[in-house]
């Protein structure tokens, strides 16, 4: 590959198939920088104006600064663009930067697991997208390669090409129609479903109850079909998520920040102080919380609209694809060969409304980036639970989702005791510290201590009991299922063939109670799915049943009646 790394020859393609990124890149950067500069100019202007200089002077300084910043950014980006080349060969995707520092990143094509396209409003204005190519590698930057920016239509073709399992370049019959609002229509590129001969999962699964419109495609096993589409009634689940309090709190912080720029903070705080003096504390707190909640709810709704506008989950040629986004359009793909299972998540608020979301359990998924508002592994947003299970069933290609069909086994009562002790401890400890400080310094803290105790103890105990009730494990068909979580309940179905080892841990407390924590290690996501506080004997039998043969040679059986829970061997004390 190094002989291909000769000097870039002009723009566009060079002889060796090296291609340049989209030439609109410097313009995009200039616009972006201009936006940021304008935004930060406002507080700067506010502070400069504070001095007694004439306004035109301040404006002139700002204008010069603005031009310099934008110009420098555009020039730097132009340099980056000029010296960055990528190419797609039969075996690899390569990205190189060769100016002063030379960097070559090369990814074997058969390692490509995800190809995601995102375009924020600015990129969409220019008709370009950012492409992230993910490999199976876990963690770190080396896992993926970013081509930013690419022409939208070109990127669309490239995406299909990269995910084509045959690995040979695909010759498009015709450029696909590209809609201006991001989500492209069906790309009828592959004449044949070359990846998987009419997969079993395409036949029975889509029922009328799933809001799925199967593409009107003649023939057997449509190469593209829709698994789920957005139903606007799901927006009712948005306000009960964690984003509501977070956004509510953020709104107050933002208000203070902005007022500080304009030197109004004192005024606002003063006003709040007046309010505080006029109103008794309790109604004031209620008022503030109410305002926070209203703002949070509005924010959550807006966030939902932005994130999930035009949501569609499709299966195309052996690849799952999620398209969504109002302002920033996103197209996330997941090669179905990477799928190791599915996870149904029910956060506490949604659980009360009988709603759940669906995550993929797959290898080589990108972790959520800092600038992303939602997780790439999310396949379905909060939706009615029954629907979530049906979507999960379709994703794993079963009649019924393993997360639903499984008969979960409870964990021993000792597990409940442990959860209750944690719950009580987590309240008692801070309360005790407060009480101690109260005794030493001020009686006010004593009051806080007992209020904490009275208010939080029931909550903690309820959460502890909930955590125990949620614990469960079972095997159904090809999947092992574990359920866990206080408040937010997770039900993970992991394909048994995706288990690549077992880790069994036990703390001294667990050994006394006859419990272990069983971890099914897997190449997907964080690397292991835990079955916490399962009875030692049951857990080992479960692990052996889930992955036959792996643990068998290391097990001892004794069929004397179960006296007590026998301790694990070699406890060595």
């Amino acid at each position, binding site marked *: 590959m190094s002989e291909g790394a000769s000097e870039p020859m002009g723009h566009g393609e060079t002889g060796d198939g090296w291609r340049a990124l989209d030439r609109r890149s410097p313009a995009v950067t200039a616009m972006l920088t201009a936006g940021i500069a304008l935004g930060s100019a406002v507080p700067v202007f506010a502070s400069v104006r504070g001095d007694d200089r004439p306004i035109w002077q301040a404006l002139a300084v700002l204008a010069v600064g603005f031009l310099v910043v934008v110009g420098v950014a555009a020039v730097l980006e132009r340099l980056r663009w000029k010296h960055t080349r990528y190419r797609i060969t039969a075996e690899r995707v390569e990205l190189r930067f060769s100016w002063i520092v030379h960097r070559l990143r090369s990814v074997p094509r058969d390692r490509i697991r995800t190809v995601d396209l995102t375009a924020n409003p600015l990129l969409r204005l220019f008709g370009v997208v950012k492409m992230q190519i993910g490999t*199976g590698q*876990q*963690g770190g930057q080396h896992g993926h390669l970013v081509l930013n920016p690419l022409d939208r239509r070109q990127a669309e073709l490239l995406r299909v090409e990269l995910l084509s399992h045959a690995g040979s370049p695909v010759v498009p019959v015709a450029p696909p129609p590209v809609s201006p609002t991001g989500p492209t229509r069906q790309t009828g590129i592959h004449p044949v479903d070359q990846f998987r001969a009419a997969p079993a999962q395409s036949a029975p699964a889509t029922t009328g109850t799933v809001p799925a419109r199967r593409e009107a495609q003649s023939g057997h096993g449509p190469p593209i079909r829709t698994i789920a589409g957005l139903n606007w009634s799901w927006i009712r689940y948005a306000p009960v998520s964690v984003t509501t309090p977070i956004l509510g709190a953020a709104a107050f912080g933002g208000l203070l920040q902005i007022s500080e720029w304009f030197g109004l903070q004192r005024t606002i705080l003063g006003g709040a102080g007046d309010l505080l003096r006029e109103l008794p504390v309790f109604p004031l707190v209620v008022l503030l919380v109410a305002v926070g909640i209203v703002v949070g709810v509005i924010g959550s709704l807006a966030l939902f609209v932005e994130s999930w506008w035009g949501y569609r989950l499709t299966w195309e040629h052996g690849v799952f694809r999620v398209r969504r986004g109002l302002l920033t359009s996103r197209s996330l793909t997941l090669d179905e060969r990477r799928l190791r299972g599915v996870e149904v998540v029910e956060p506490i608020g949604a659980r009360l409304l009988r709603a759940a979301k669906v995550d993929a359990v797959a*290898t080589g998924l990108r972790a959520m980036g800092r600038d992303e508002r939602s997780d790439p592994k999310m396949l379905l947003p909060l939706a009615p639970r029954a629907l979530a299970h049906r979507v999960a069933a379709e994703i794993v290609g079963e009649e019924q989702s393993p997360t639903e069909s499984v008969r979960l*086994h409870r964990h021993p009562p000792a597990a409940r005791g442990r959860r209750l002790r944690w719950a009580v401890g987590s309240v008692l400890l801070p309360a005790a510290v407060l009480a101690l400080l109260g005794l030493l310094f001020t009686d006010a803290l004593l009051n806080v201590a007992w209020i904490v105790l009275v208010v939080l103890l029931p909550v903690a105990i309820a959460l502890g009991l909930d955590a125990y009730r949620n614990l469960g494990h079972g095997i159904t068909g090809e999947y092992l299922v574990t359920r866990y979580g206080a408040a937010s309940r997770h039900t993970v179905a992991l394909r048994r063939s995706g288990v*690549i*080892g*077992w*880790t*069994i*841990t*036990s*703390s*001294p407390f667990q*050994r006394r109670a006859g419990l272990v924590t069983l*971890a099914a*290690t*897997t*190449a997907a*996501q*964080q*690397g*292991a799915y835990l079955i916490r506080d399962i009875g*030692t*004997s*049951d857990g*080992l*039998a*479960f692990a*052996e*049943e889930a992955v036959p*043969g*792996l*643990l068998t*040679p*290391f*097990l*001892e*059986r*004794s*069929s*004397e*009646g*179960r006296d007590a829970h*026998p301790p*694990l*061997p*070699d*406890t*060595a004390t």
Partner: protein
Amino acid sequence: MPGQIETVRLRPPANRVERRAVWWWMTQDLLGAVIPAVALGVLAAVIAPARSWLQFAQVIVLVVGVVYAAIVPFWRYRVHRWEVTEDAVYAKAGWLWQEWRVAPMSRIQTVDTERGPIERLFRLSSVTVTTASAAGPIKIVGLDHELAAELVRRLTETTQAAPGDAT
């Protein structure tokens, strides 16, 4: 549920680690106590106002460290065990918190040896067996360095024979 009357337990892996691993652990633990104690001693000599506090801390560090070094290595020696069969690697580690790890041969991705300076002193090596899981490798510590090299050779041979990308 299987095992109504029958109880199942893990049998310990077949092999203990080298006996001299105890001395290696102990050296490590002692260094871990002595180095901060020396640092505290230096500080105590320099910073007169805080001398009594620093010396107090020094004594605590030394006492805890020595007690730890006197007990835990022997305890570890009783717990740490390993075994490599035709089909799997099986290892147990820890002392208070104990951990059994099993990985099938077919899912092993890399096998490495590692020898720190103190391990070298005791002619010991550790072997790290990674799978595609991000949840951590199987690490077998306290092996005789020749045995470890032999083990790595064997594991590499077996795992190279296995097809697929082990995910």
